[in-house]
């Protein structure tokens, strides 16, 4: 039996489940670095010129593909390897994620040093993206099993780490680049090497301390409720059955549109606030309105990141009390209303109202990510929730492209027709409100999964789970 096997990490009596969230956070705080990749954009466009771009240097559009490839491979790897993750347990998966993510940085460093962009795509994008996917789903499904009494809070803790990883990633990248920068180098390649090593070690720590509960384990004093909410099943659905259900696709649309809307704001936050609240000068050059400066816009982006992180924990924990469906009704309905208020705040010239609306929107964007694993557990049971979550994350890959494309292209289209300020963004905001309304309809359509999809021990029609013994008596029927 290998040191990495699931059987080697089954917790013994006396083990506190509160040791597991640090393992999950070690992985999510690392892979959350992807949100801060943009800090490398400018230095990478100056690899040859060092202080400025020269012919032969990489362009910003070509570099934008690094992030897009990484997010695409996050979804693809989570979907493809979901069952492997469930079968092999979190230690092996977290170690694989650490190797992919750390190794991706090293290959990307070679790409920067040799000025071969395809190596950066392959390293950070493809290999690093696989590390993101494996690292994202494994701790989440482990925590769901450790906290059956509070699945929303548990997944919120881990996924909050993914949001928090951006804070560490951006500041660590800037600190390291400053340290490695010389007259002949931007310092990106050695920064990638250092970050690959640091993140590998941090994720390795997570993989070493993670534990899974014994099959029949329950928190002390916890009794699964006899009469529970209609949407919370006590049955299990195998992953290959789950994605044949209408519920899976309803949640796919919900996640996709909630993320599309949020990413649209996140990605454009800095230019958006500056263009919606510009400096206004009078005929004689006197300043009538100060407007939002680039530095202040940086503060706005930081504020959004904080609410993105906090929303993941707060909203997801709240879902344990309100119910998952109710939480998504709030995200989608309130979100749609707030998106319509964004242009209004711009027309009124009230940047405080704009900031207030934006931070609530972004908190619900984060909340949407964090609540989805618990929603899946409610509907499909905990047996293969990691694998099902993995397949649902393809919605994120689609949204990662859809959100920025919609906002950017609409903005460019309107700019070419002479629009300025608020008018550059208003149609995109109304479009996002429309997408959230479609998501709301899909969420309202979610009903309990039909019994014909439920896993029955030994049934050949269902793909046998890796651990059929997990089907304890209380998992035998749907209420």
């Amino acid at each position, binding site marked *: 039996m290998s040191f990495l096997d699931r059987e080697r990490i089954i917790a013994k009596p006396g083990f506190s489940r509160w040791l597991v969230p640090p393992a999950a956070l070690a992985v999510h705080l690392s892979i959350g670095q992807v949100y801060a990749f943009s800090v490398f954009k400018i230095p990478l466009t100056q690899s040859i010129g060092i202080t400025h771009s020269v012919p032969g240097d990489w362009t910003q559009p070509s570099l934008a593909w690094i992030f897009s490839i990484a997010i695409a491979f996050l979804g693809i790897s989570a979907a493809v390897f979901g069952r492997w993750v469930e079968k092999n347990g979190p230690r092996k998966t977290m170690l694989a994620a650490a190797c992919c993510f750390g190794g991706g940085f090293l290959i990307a460093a070679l790409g920067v040093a040799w000025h071969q962009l395809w190596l950066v795509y392959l390293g950070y994008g493809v290999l690093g993206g696989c590390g993101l996917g494996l690292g994202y789903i494994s701790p989440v499904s482990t925590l769901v099993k450790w906290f059956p009494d509070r699945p929303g809070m548990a997944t919120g803790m881990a996924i909050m780490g993914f949001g928090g990883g951006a804070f560490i990633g951006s500041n660590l990248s800037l600190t390291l680049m400053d340290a490695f920068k010389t007259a002949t180098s931007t310092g990106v390649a050695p920064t990638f090497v250092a970050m690959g090593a640091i993140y590998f070690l941090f994720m390795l*720590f997570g993989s070493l301390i993670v534990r899974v509960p014994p099959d029949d384990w329950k928190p002390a004093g916890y009794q699964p409720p006899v009469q529970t909410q209609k949407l919370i099943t006590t049955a299990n659905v195998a992953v290959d059955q789950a994605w044949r259900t209408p519920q899976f696709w309803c949640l796919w649309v919900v996640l996709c549109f909630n993320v599309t809307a949020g990413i649209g704001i996140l990605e454009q936050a800095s230019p958006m606030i500056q263009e919606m609240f510009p400096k206004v000068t009078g005929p004689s050059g006197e300043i009538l309105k100060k407007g939002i400066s680039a530095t202040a816009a*940086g503060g706005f982006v930081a504020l959004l990141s904080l609410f993105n992180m906090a929303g993941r924990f707060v909203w997801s924990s709240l879902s344990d009390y309100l119910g998952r469906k109710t939480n998504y009704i709030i995200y989608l309905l309130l979100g749609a209303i707030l998106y319509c208020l964004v242009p209004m705040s711009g027309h009124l010239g009230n940047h405080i109202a704009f900031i207030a609306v934006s931070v609530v929107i972004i908190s619900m964007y984060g909340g949407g990510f964090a609540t989805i694993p618990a929603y899946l557990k409610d509907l499909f049971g905990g047996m293969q929730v990691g694998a099902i979550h993995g397949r649902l994350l393809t919605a994120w890959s689609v949204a990662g492209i859809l959100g920025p494309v919609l906002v950017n292209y609409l903005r460019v289209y309107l700019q070419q027709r002479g629009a300025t300020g608020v008018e550059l963004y208003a149609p995109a905001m109304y479009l996002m409100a429309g997408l959230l309304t479609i998501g709301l309809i899909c969420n309202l359509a979610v009903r309990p999964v039909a019994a014909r999809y439920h896993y029955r021990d030994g049934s050949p029609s269902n793909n046998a789970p890796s651990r059929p013994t997990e089907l304890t008596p209380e998992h035998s029927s749907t209420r």
Partner: protein
Amino acid sequence: MDKTTAPTSATQLILYWLIVGTPLAWGVWKTLAKLPALLQ
């Protein structure tokens, strides 16, 4: 007995949480420093 699965001590709990909490607190602190510009 495998030491890592021995009954959990308070020291172990505090240590693990500190290991993951410290970098996060550092990142948040550095980011908060950018906020005053927005409020001016």
